[in-house]
């Protein structure tokens, strides 16, 4: 159901860091305790605001990594020359406090009632909101068939790997590694292309609901190929990050 009720202003709240999990060299999942959090939907994001000792503030948006019935967590990738992400991934400690507000966005979200089959396609840290959708599906006992096609540079860059490897029961996770593959690699190699999508994505005739998230060039290329396969553009939801 679309929740269209007019809401009040999203106010800044103080959140306390409960845990920091190392996902890869550059990626951390930050568990947050947010008193009075009104709940969120899989795929939504939140805004973080940091305040320096001299009063300087910086705000950034991050996808929420958890299902709607779980405590809030964000997964952050350290960007070289970034201002906020190096602090969040390297300096932040459990017990620290920061400000946030959310949840934000009602387009790039999936509820079990939206149905499927569900096609999730991620490039790099674009997997974060899609992981929230997978967790929402599992925790709500949904039997909507889902496939995740997840492109990473190397195996060491795969976020949530141990969790993703455990999905069964109608959930299929397919990896492709673009830069380097370990010996005996049985997943796909190279960038997502039309041939890979033809083998891994639901046939267009099944009327899949698709979410694509990743760097702009990745999303642009994947969405265009899906349209070329006959996917109706209105059933492809995209979220992009980074410059071009």
């Amino acid at each position, binding site marked *: 159901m679309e929740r*269209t009720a*007019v*809401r*009040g*202003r*999203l106010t800044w709240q*103080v959140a306390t860091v409960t845990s920091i999990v190392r996902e890869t060299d550059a990626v951390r999942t930050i568990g947050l305790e947010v008193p009075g959090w009104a709940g969120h939907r899989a795929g939504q994001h939140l805004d973080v605001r*940091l*305040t*320096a*000792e*001299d009063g*300087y*503030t*910086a*705000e*950034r*948006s991050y996808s929420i990594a958890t299902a709607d019935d779980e405590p809030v967590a964000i997964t952050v990738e350290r960007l070289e*020359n*970034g*201002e906020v992400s190096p*602090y969040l991934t390297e*300096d*932040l400690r459990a017990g*620290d*406090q*920061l*400000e946030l507000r959310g949840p*934000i*966005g*009602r*387009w*790039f979200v999936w509820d079990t009632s939206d149905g499927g089959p569900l096609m999730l396609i991620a490039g790099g840290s674009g997997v974060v909101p899609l992981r929230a959708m997978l967790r929402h599906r599992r925790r709500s006992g949904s039997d909507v068939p889902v496939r995740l096609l997840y492109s990473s540079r190397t195996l060491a860059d795969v976020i949530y790997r141990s969790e993703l490897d455990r999905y069964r029961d109608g959930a299929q996770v397919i990896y492709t590694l673009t830069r380097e593959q370990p010996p005996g690699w049985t997943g796909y190699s190279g960038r997502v292309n039309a041939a890979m999508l033809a083998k891994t994505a639901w046939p267009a005739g099944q009327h899949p609901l698709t979410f694509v998230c990743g760097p*702009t060039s990745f*999303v*642009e290329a994947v*969405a*265009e190929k*899906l*349209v070329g396969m006959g996917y109706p*553009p*209105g059933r*492809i*939801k*995209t979220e*992009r*990050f*980074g*410059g*071009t």
Partner: protein
Amino acid sequence: MSTPISRGFRRLRRPSAGEKGRVPPGQYVTQGFPVLSAGPTPHTPLPEWTFSIRQGGGTLKSWTWQEFQELPAEDVTTDIHCVTRWSKLDTMWRGVSVDTLLGQVDHDTPYVLAFCDGGYTTNLPIRDVTGGQAWVAFGFGGAPLESEHGGPARLLVPHLYFWKSAKWVRGLELLDHDEPGFWETYGYHNYGDPWKEQRYAGD
């Protein structure tokens, strides 16, 4: 509520003299040109492209691509501010002023709804798209506007958050009432003034 201080967090770069007063609160300056889109990029062939002004189910005026190119165009250098927090300064556009377009029809409605390929819409008070504040832009940085950035033509309303500068625009619907557009329906602010940080509904 006292603001928590993040010890060790510090500003990465000082704003240059030329940036002072030009970056709205909560924004940072980027040299790139990020993209915010809800779905696949539409590709309408130019021979099929039109720009229309509609009202009450009828078309008041419509231009083909060729006719549109023959309208007087302006070069516009302006700063743009995306709700996802990047600002880009001194961007260079070429397009037709909305004043020029509306000048060819009789109109007295207080609102417009821009409509686009891909089904996007965005709503604007007419006072925000007139008076030299809005264009239908087809050039960027001296070249044709690329499709992923809204080409062949997008609305340019730089004093509001950039989602109001709707990509792949195909026309304006004149309305006697305000009607939320696409992002405005999905949680974003109805007006979107970056200097008041009107990012989300209720801000």
